[in-house]
């Protein structure tokens, strides 16, 4: 079991024939992801990477039965690509594109909700269910099939956590990078709800950053609903207030969005909080042992 994507997922790539799309689609196919085709307006009817190219998402879905889409469309056109995917009936949309204006994202959330679609991202590394499907830009080889669900906002920091978990001899059920923008399709809580219901996920790693309240909301939900051990880390303990730390969402605007405040609340909610990102994997292993799962 897993969440969001598995070996049966039929994946299309929006922005298929561009350089980013081509590179990562190739990697996804090599990993074993069931990529059934792609969309590039104006190139419909051709073949790319041995798969059909369509002009619209709608025609791609009708021809292939695709249920997952990954988007590599440039920022100026990305919002339209997301709306198109949802309108065509895609249920899991992974938006990799970085730099989408916030204004464009405002209308997307209610639109997706009305169509029952889940979006991961934008500005994210994507989703991977090790051994089954990689719908993202993460390096596949650091992952290993297993029972730890990982959720994070960032790319390389997620890889760090994945690597540490693999080093501990544990593997991952599904890893989700929700993205670093102020408005993202899915919050930490949305993904934790799914991981909590997944029978194959034994433990959860929640990685956050300064800014916003996504981690705090998740911690409160975990306190009331999750019995599985949860390990947490918040990056940006040393970040100064008011400055943008790479991710547009990573600004401390005052209140409970500092790393210290988030970590305190997470601890109060029963999460195993690590101060050093070097001990994420080790702490997960210890938490499993404590709960008698190892």
């Amino acid at each position, binding site marked *: 079991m897993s969440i969001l994507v598995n070996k049966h997922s039929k994946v299309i790539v929006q922005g298929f024939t561009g350089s980013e799309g081509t*590179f990562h689609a190739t990697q996804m196919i090599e990993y074993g992801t069931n990529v059934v085709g792609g969309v590039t307006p104006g190139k419909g009817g051709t073949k790319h990477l041995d798969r059909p190219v369509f002009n619209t998402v709608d025609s791609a879905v009708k021809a292939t039965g695709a249920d997952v889409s990954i988007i590599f469309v440039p920022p100026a056109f990305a919002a339209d690509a997301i709306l198109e995917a949802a309108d065509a009936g895609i249920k899991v949309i992974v938006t990799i594109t970085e730099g989408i204006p916030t204004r464009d994202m405002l209308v997307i959330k209610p639109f997706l909700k009305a169509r029952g679609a889940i979006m991961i991202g934008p500005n994210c590394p994507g989703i991977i269910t090790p051994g089954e499907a990689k719908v993202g*830009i993460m*390096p596949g080889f650091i992952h290993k099939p297993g029972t730890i669900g990982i959720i994070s906002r*960032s790319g390389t*920091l997620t*890889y760090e956590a994945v690597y540490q978990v693999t080093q501990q001899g544990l593997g991952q059920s599904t890893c989700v990078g929700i993205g*670093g923008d102020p408005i993202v399709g899915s919050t930490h809580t949305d993904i934790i709800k799914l991981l909590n219901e997944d029978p194959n996920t034994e433990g959860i790693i929640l990685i956050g950053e300064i800014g*916003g309240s996504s981690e705090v909301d998740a911690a409160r939900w975990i306190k009331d609903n999750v019995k599985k051990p949860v390990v947490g880390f918040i990056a940006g303990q*040393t970040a100064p207030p008011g400055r943008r730390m790479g991710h547009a969402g990573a600004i401390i605007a005052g209140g409970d969005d500092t790393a210290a405040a988030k970590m305190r609340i997470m601890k109060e909610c029963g999460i195993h909080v690590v101060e050093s990102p*070097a001990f994420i994997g080790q702490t997960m292993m210890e938490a499993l042992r404590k709960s008698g799962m190892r």
Partner: protein
Amino acid sequence: MKIHEYQGKEIFRKYGVPVLKGIVIKTPEEAKQAAIELGSPVVVVKSQIHAGGRGQGKVYDIKDRTKMLSDRGVKVVKSPQEAEDFARLVLGNVLVTKQTGEEGKVVHTMYVEDGCAIEKEYYLSITLDRVTSKNVIIASAEGGMDIEKVAEEHPEKIVKEWIDPLTGLRPYQISKIGYALGFTPELVKQFIPFMNALYKCYMDGDCSLLEVNPLVTTKDGKIMALDSKINFDDNALFRHPDYAPLRDLNEEEPLEIEASESNLNYVKLDGNVGCMVNGAGLAMATMDIIKLSGGEPANFLDVGGGANAKTVEAGFRIILKDPNVKAILINIFGGIVRCDRVANGVVEAYKSIGNINIPIIVRLQGTNAEEAAKIINESGLKVRSAVALADAAKLVNEALQA
């Protein structure tokens, strides 16, 4: 991107948001001339820097930071001569406010504005509420004050109205805010077009923050924006080429400008250990590791997805310009980026710069990490390599002890 008050007010004027008449000046003589031109018995001379709290800020001599020249960055003056005198005192010197930090900001520009008879001050802003993914209007009858403090001590005095992206801002919402602020029906009638114009300005411009503090009602019954603070969404600047000239490089850290030219995401901090990392999340985590190892991060530096010899060298050069840096930690998690390539980049950059006299710790993990460690260790350079993050932390600690 942030802009100055006077630039914000120019935009306000275009949208029909009422603001007072004002003139931008860069010399004391211009201040005098501006006051004469405005012709009012009372004018206000306002320092233009990208930080709030200018009124209560203090101006220090740029040559002698212990010498306070003025106990305010904004002054109401009664004659053109007084305007010139105040401008002479402030221009070229350092304004320290509670938002600038101790280092303050040099005042290069001032704004001479008409005075006005204020009846009452209010606070008004539009920004994104990340929790609901909606824009929100925040208003308070406690104007001109520190809004964070009001929110903390008297949350009941803050009015919030969320804007549904599908309907936009509706007139009923504006009148709700107006009555909550205690406006008379006559003022509410004025407030509806006022608020609509501000909201249009916010949406059209892809703003991330639009703040009017204070918004005032005048003795003659008008609503006026006495201040303006506008931040633009950096991701949307591509569709506003007309806003690009509003960028004031004087307000930015020179090293940050240099970094952005090399496509590096750099934020200067005050610590002693520099760092260079791929990915924003890992970069923040690396700063935390530095702190836990007994150091203080000297910077945030994300080299992005394409870490190569050129970006590594640019990163090195920027970090090394900071005299406080006593050690550098490079932390790269190679995914798509191959670690051996990054390692070669580090060696090349090191050789090309030459004479790096501080310890460098390189932690390369992920694709081809072992080959990378070999390249570093066999390079003959004074570079220590680590594979696990915990080992890198230990090496940083040792470097600081030495």
